[in-house]
């Protein structure tokens, strides 16, 4: 199908983009979720503001004990970045498994987090890493921790005039990994699990089992109390109630949580 009628502007500066968003325009990043939704008319924004010209939103640099990743940095760049691979592996690994290469060439980390699809990989990876986002509006700037970012299906805690400008990745998340299960190479995760073994303990986050990425607190509690991996895996799905759907039954998905948590934890421990 053809998207419904709209008015498009390309922002020349971040201030222009913020003004357009405050006036009701929908931000367009890589367009790899928004344009497909517009083609299906699941989304019909009247106004679009393209962030594609904002060079200041692209790139990765060190800032203290974090990596600062511009919101418009593509999945392909995140997946290949030596600093992210070395210090926050779980996010690079999640980015490398998004859709296909042609999608990773355009899709962005900021777009993925702003979109907050309940099967998306980046929100779960960021949650496992214990990262955050920096959001900006004409009113100022604030930081939102990954734990507080996604609130429900396709919904974040951003106000309607705010844009994600930067993603903050802790450099202490080197021992980390992301494991996903899907049927075809291009598919979204049925379930995906990110694990970080950090100095303050192990964090585990899961996509595909709720309306937003969830911490696997059952698994975390066992491991952080010195329990065995087998015991932790047995508790991995505690508190999660996935839906029965075309991807599989709730029971099957809970089984996947355990299998993938074991896989990601084992991989992270070896790093």
């Amino acid at each position, binding site marked *: *199908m*053809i*998207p*419904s*009628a*709209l*008015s*498009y502007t*390309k922002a020349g500066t971040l201030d222009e983009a913020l003004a357009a968003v405050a006036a009701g325009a929908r931000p*367009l990043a890589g*367009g*790899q979720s928004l*344009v*497909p939704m*517009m*083609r*299906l008319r699941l989304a019909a924004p009247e106004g*679009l503001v*393209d962030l*594609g010209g904002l060079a200041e939103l692209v790139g990765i640099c060190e800032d203290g004990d974090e990596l600062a990743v511009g919101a418009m940095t593509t999945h392909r760049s995140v997946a290949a970045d030596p600093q992210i691979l070395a210090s926050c592996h779980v996010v690079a690994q999640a980015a490398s498994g998004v*859709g*296909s*290469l*042609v*999608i990773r*060439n*355009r899709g962005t980390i900021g777009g993925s987090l702003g979109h907050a699809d309940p099967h998306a990989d980046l929100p779960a990876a960021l949650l496992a890493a214990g990262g955050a986002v920096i959001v900006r509006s004409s009113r100022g700037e604030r930081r939102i921790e990954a734990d507080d970012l996604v609130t429900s299906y396709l919904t974040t805690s951003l106000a309607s005039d705010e844009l994600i400008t930067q993603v903050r990745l802790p450099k202490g998340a080197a021992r980390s990994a992301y494991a996903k299960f899907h049927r075809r*190479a*291009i598919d979204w995760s049925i379930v995906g699990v990110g694990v970080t073994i950090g100095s303050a303990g192990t964090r585990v986050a899961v996509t595909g089992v709720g309306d937003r990425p969830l911490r696997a607190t059952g698994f975390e509690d066992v491991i952080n109390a010195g329990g065995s991996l087998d015991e932790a895996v047995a508790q991995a799905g505690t508190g999660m109630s996935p839906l029965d759907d075309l991807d599989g039954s709730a029971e099957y998905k809970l089984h996947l949580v355990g299998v993938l948590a074991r896989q990601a934890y084992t991989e992270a421990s070896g790093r």
Partner: protein
Amino acid sequence: MSQTITVTVNGTAHTAEVEQRQLLVHFLRETLNLTGTHVGCDTSTCGCCTVHLNGEAILSCSLLAVQADGCAVRTVEGLQQDGVLHPIQQAFHENHGLQCGFCTPGMMMAALGVIEQHPDASDEEVREALEGNLCRCTGYQNIVAAVRSAADEMARS
């Protein structure tokens, strides 16, 4: 809303007034009559519409034409030069890399997106380059063989 855009397609600059909601693939097919770029799905999952935007392989069904304003686009029509097939076209022909041919333009553009930068790409890297491209006919083996052979040929010349 309409907007005047200039897009350089296969080396030629085209200026046209387009609706802002128009997808790049429809601009290529309907405005420029370049029908080698195919539309195989409504869900950004088949890869038939793959073209290069400023040198990178992308889905032309998932980009608005206005987003390509000022950019360089390369389509399958830009591959052959003066009637001589591009090495990747020759290799698909020689390796039986196509049957019905519907997926072929997208396959070639997606593959070129990787082997032009890395002619020594492994079979695994070639398969990764093509993971977003569906083929209902060949079973993929001959496609990978064709891309391999094209990469070797391009590395030689």
